C-alpha cells in the first residue's frame, strides 16, 4: 500500500509545475487594471506595488502561448514577420533583437510601434492579449518555457514547432542591415 502512496506523492511532486502551465484564464485578469503608471520615484504610499502588469505571467502558460500564436495570425503579425522567419519585418525566431528581448521591451514595441514600419497597436489590442503575443514572440526563439510552448500547427509546414526550438541567447543589433530588410 505504501508503494501506491509513494507513487502518488512522486507523481504529484513531479507534476506540480503543471498547475500553472495548464491554467486557462478565460477572464482577462487585467479587465479593470490600467497599464502601470510611469513612476519617477521609488517611494509609494502604502505597500509598494511593482507588478500591476502581466509581465512574464504567460511565459510558462500553455493556453496563453497558444492564444498568442493564434493572435499572431489574427492580428496579421505574419504579414510582415512571416511565421517568425521575417519578411518586411525582422525575423523573430533568431537571436538578434533590435529593440530588446525582455517581455517589457517587446510589449513596448507592440504597443508603441517602432520606426520604419512597425505599427503601434496600443488601444487596438487588449492588454492581456498583448502580453500573450509577447510570450509567444519569445517562444519563437525558445525564450519561453519549452514545456508550455505550442506544438506544430495544422497548416503547411514552415518551421519547427515552438516547443522544439532550442533557447537562443539574445543579442542586440543596431536597427540596420539584413535582419531588418532582407
Amino acid at each position: 500500500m505504501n508503494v501506491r502512496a509513494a507513487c502518488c506523492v512522486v507523481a504529484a511532486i513531479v507534476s506540480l509545475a503543471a498547475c500553472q502551465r495548464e491554467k486557462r484564464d478565460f477572464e482577462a485578469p487585467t479587465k479593470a487594471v490600467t497599464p502601470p503608471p510611469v513612476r519617477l520615484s521609488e517611494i509609494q504610499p502604502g505597500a509598494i506595488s511593482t507588478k500591476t502588469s502581466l509581465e512574464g505571467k504567460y511565459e510558462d502558460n500553455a493556453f496563453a502561448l497558444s492564444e498568442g500564436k493564434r493572435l499572431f495570425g489574427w492580428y496579421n503579425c505574419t504579414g510582415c514577420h512571416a511565421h517568425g522567419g521575417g519578411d518586411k519585418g525582422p525575423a523573430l525566431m533568431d537571436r538578434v533583437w533590435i529593440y530588446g528581448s525582455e517581455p517589457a521591451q517587446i510589449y513596448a514595441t507592440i504597443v508603441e510601434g517602432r520606426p520604419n514600419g512597425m505599427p503601434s497597436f496600443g488601444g487596438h489590442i487588449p492588454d492581456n492579449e498583448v502580453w500573450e503575443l509577447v510570450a509567444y514572440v519569445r517562444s519563437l526563439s525558445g525564450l519561453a518555457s519549452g514545456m508550455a510552448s505550442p506544438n506544430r500547427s495544422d497548416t503547411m509546414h514552415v518551421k519547427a514547432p515552438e516547443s522544439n526550438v532550442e533557447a537562443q541567447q539574445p543579442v542586440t543589433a543596431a536597427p540596420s542591415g539584413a535582419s531588418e530588410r532582407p
Partner: protein
Amino acid sequence: MSRLLAALDPRELRKAARASVGRGEAIYDGPGWGSPAASALDRTWREKPGVRGWLETVDHKRTGKRFVFTSFVFFCAAGILAAIMRSQLAFPDSHLVGPDLYDQMFTMHGTTMMFIFAVPVMQGMAVYLIPLMVGTRNTAFPRMTACAFWLYLLGSLSLWVGFALNTGADAGWFAYVPLAGPEYGIGKRSDLWNNLINLTEAMGLMVAVDLATVILKMRAPGMSLRRMPVFAWSILVTSVMIIFAMPSVMLAANLAQFDRTFATHFFNPAEGGDVLIWQHLFWFFGHPEVYFIFIPALGFISTIIPTFARRPLFGHTAVVLSMIATGFLAFGLWVHHMFATNLPELGKGFFTAMSMMIAIPTAVQIFCWIATLWSGRINLRAPILFVLGFFFILVLGGMTGIMIGAVPFDLQVHDSYFIVAHLHYVLLGGAVFPLFAAFYYWFPKFTGRLLDERLGRWQFWTFFVGFNVTFFPMHLLGLAGMPRRIYTYAADTGWGTLNLVATIGAAIIAVSVLLFVVNVIRTRAGGEAAGDDPWGAATLEWATHSPPPAFNFVALPVVASREPLWAREADEPTHVSGLSAQVREGLVTTVLDALPDVRYAYPSPSIWPAVAAVTVVVWLFWSNVTPSGMWYGLIPPAIAFILWYWPTRRETAEQLLLQRRP
C-alpha cells in the same frame, strides 16, 4: 554480475538444486487436503510476506483481485464525476462547473469507464477465474500479467493525478483530432491521454495473450473444447478480439503523439494527412471494445443462469457459436460511429446490415437463456436478480441499437442524448448488471464469505430503478434535439425537466453503489461463511476451497463432462496426480481434446515485472517532455526486461531437476 554468471555453472547448479529442492524423496501432488503433498504444495506456492512479496507476486488470484479492486475504485471515481456532471445539467444555465472543468470531467468519465474500468475489470475477473475454471494452478505467463497490472495502475494513476493538477485530458474519450492534435490540444493534457492508451492497451494485450494461452493449452485433462465452460469460451473470444483490435488504437495514439512531439503530419490535411484516419483507426478498435466488455458479461450470465436454474445451459453449442459470431461481426461495425462523415451509399448499406445482423447472435443467446429458465427450477437469489435486470435493460439498449444502426435515423440522433441513453443501456445493462451478478456469485469464492442477501436485493432495486430514471429520459432529450457533451443549455430549449429527472436518478444510482460498498465492507468484517460451494454450481472453481489456496487444487481435476461437478460417472478418474509438489509444475494439454501433453514449470515470483512497468512509464513521460527522451528513455526498460528473463540459480536448478525426473 559474477552471481548472475554463476547461475550457468553446472557445479554451482547441482549444489543449488540440493539446497533448494532437497535430497530426500521427491513429493508428488495428489488428492487429500491434509496430506504431506498438500503441505509441500503450500510451501512451494506460498509467496513471501511483506512489501517484497506484495510487489513480486505472480499468483493469478492476487493479480486478478488487484485488477478488480483497482478498476472498481476508478469506477467509483468516474461515477462521482458523472454525479457532478449530472448536477451541473440538472438546471439550465447552471454555473456549478465551467466549460474547462466540464470538458475534463466528461473526458475523464468516458476514458476511465472504457479504458480503466470496463476492460480491466473483465480481464481481472478472468485472470482470477479462468485458471480455476479450467483446472490449473496459475496462468501461463503470470509475470507478464503482473507487469500488465503495474502498467495499468501507473497509467491510470498518472491520468488521474494529471486531472487533479488541472491537466486532465479534455478532448473526449475518443480524442478526435484536430481537437486532440498538436494545435488545438493545448498543453500536456492529450499527451497524458495518449500515454494512458499506450499503457492500458499494452495491459489488455498482455493479459489477453496470457488468458488465451491458459484456455487453449492448460485445461484440465479431458476438458475438450466441447466440454469447456461458456465463460472460458467468452474469454477466449474476447482475448482473440483484443489481440486484433487493440493494436489499432495504440497505433492511432502513437501517430497522434508523433504529431504532437515530433511535428509529423499524419492528421494534418494541409500537409496531405487526414483527420478521418484517426476516426477509422479509433473505431476499428472502439466498436470491438464494446464487445470486449459485453462478451465476458455474456459468459457470466451463461455461467450464472444454469447454476440458479438447476440445469445445464440450454443450447450450449448455439451459445458458443453465437459468441464467436459476435466476435467476427463486431469488426464490421465500426463505421456506424461515423455515419455523419461523408460515406459512400454502398458502405452505409453494408454497415447498416452488419449493425442489424449482430443482433441475431445476441438474440440466440437471450432465447437460450430464457429456455433454460423456462425448463429449470429457479433458486431466486441476488445474482439471478441482476441477470433479470440485465434482460430488461440490455434488450431495451439492443432495440435502440438496432434503431441507430439505420443510417437515416442515426443521422438524426447521432451525438445526441439518445446515444448517451443507448450506450449506457448497453454498457451498464450489458456489463455492469452482469458484473454485479458476478460479484454476488463469485464473492464467496474470492473471500469465503457470502454477501448479504437483503442488502443485495436493496442494491438491485435501487440500481434498477435509479438506472432507468436516469437514462430513460435521455432518449427523449435526444429526440428533442439535445446534443451530447454540452456543459450547459438554455432554459427555453425545454430540456430542463427531463434533465432534472435524470439527475435524481443519478442520485439513486449513487445510493445503490454505496449500498454495495457497505455490503462488501460488512461481509469482509464478518459475513456468513460460504463453504466451498455455496450455490451448488457445476464448474471447477467450486471444487476447491473458498478462498482457494495458492496452488488452487491439491490434484489437478480430470473432466469427463460439460458440467464436471454435476454429472460425474462413478468409474471415471476424478483427478490426475504425479506433478512435483516441490516445484511450481503444471500440465500442458492439447488444444482440441485436452490430452496431457507436456509438463510446464511456472515462473516464480519476481520483482522485475514491477520494475519494468515503472521504467516503461518513465520512458513514456520522458518522451513527452523532451523528444530525446524517446531514445534515452528506452535504456532502463531494456535493462529491466533483460534482468526479468535472466534465470536465477534456483530456477535453473529446478528446471534441471524436472528434466531428470520421469
